């Protein structure tokens, strides 16, 4: 890794923090609403729920956890780990779906 410890750290402003919070709240409201309203569309809500959750997760990681301002190494690592875990999940589920 290149030496960037001496670089001046980016300071996330209170405003950015608050904006992130607002985004998260809206998304929460959205999932709850979708879930309460669409009681019949089972699979759709699982997928939507996961998509919304992942959007929230990205918001938290990028702004609250400063990923956006950190060295890109961290983003690459997180991406690889997510893919790795998804393949564990996928390979396992494939077994059950193809029985």
């Amino acid at each position: 890794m290149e030496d960037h410890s001496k670089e001046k750290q980016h300071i996330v402003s209170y405003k950015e923090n608050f904006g992130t919070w607002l985004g998260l709240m809206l998304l929460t409201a959205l999932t709850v609403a979708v879930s309460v309203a669409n009681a019949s569309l089972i699979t759709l809500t699982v997928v939507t729920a996961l998509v919304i959750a992942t959007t929230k997760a990205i918001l938290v990681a990028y702004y609250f956890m400063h990923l956006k301002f950190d060295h890109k190494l961290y983003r690459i690592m997180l991406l690889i780990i997510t893919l790795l875990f998804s393949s564990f999940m996928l390979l396992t589920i494939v077994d059950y779906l193809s029985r």
Partner: protein
Amino acid sequence: MAHFVLPNSGHNYDPESSKLGMWLFLFTEILLFGGLFIVYFVYRTINSDAFLRASYELNITMGTINTIILITSSMTVAMAITALQKGKEKFAINLLWITLLFAIAFLINKYFEWSIKIEHGIFPGMEHYNGLETGQKLYFFLYYFMTGLHALHIIVGAIFIGFVIKGIQEGNVTADRISLLENSGLYWHLVDLIWIYLFPLFYLIN
């Protein structure tokens, strides 16, 4: 010559090292919960109807309140970092105290949620639970296991934040030595991240 010190010594204060270490640790946490999520999804695939029926037992309102609490506490921690970076120690400490209060509120809420279930006899070994179909049993057991493990992480995170408050008061954690706050913050956000998935998967799956 006895005082020769390597420039790349492992004993230097290196915030980048501790941050990398923290992230790596968070990866292990992700996979630790990941194992449980695999179990959840497999059993959900096999018992989707039973999972659905069981999920009606959970109280969406309480879950939503806890979600809001956690998201807000994440914001206060993030703001505490901003505050300390700007040299506003007092404000940082206050924000961290607020975070701690949120943590406690979360746990109290969780406690009530669990005890209501247990009063209804929904716990392994209890009568009502034993009468359930297997899919529902699995659902509830996973619910206890996963939210329990998550609550444990809340407690650990809160303890860390307590140490940070002490560190700031004693002047060990400052704008120039912010590692401990930053890393506790990362940990706290991860706890939030996991809840972001737990919440829809247990409370909202209908």
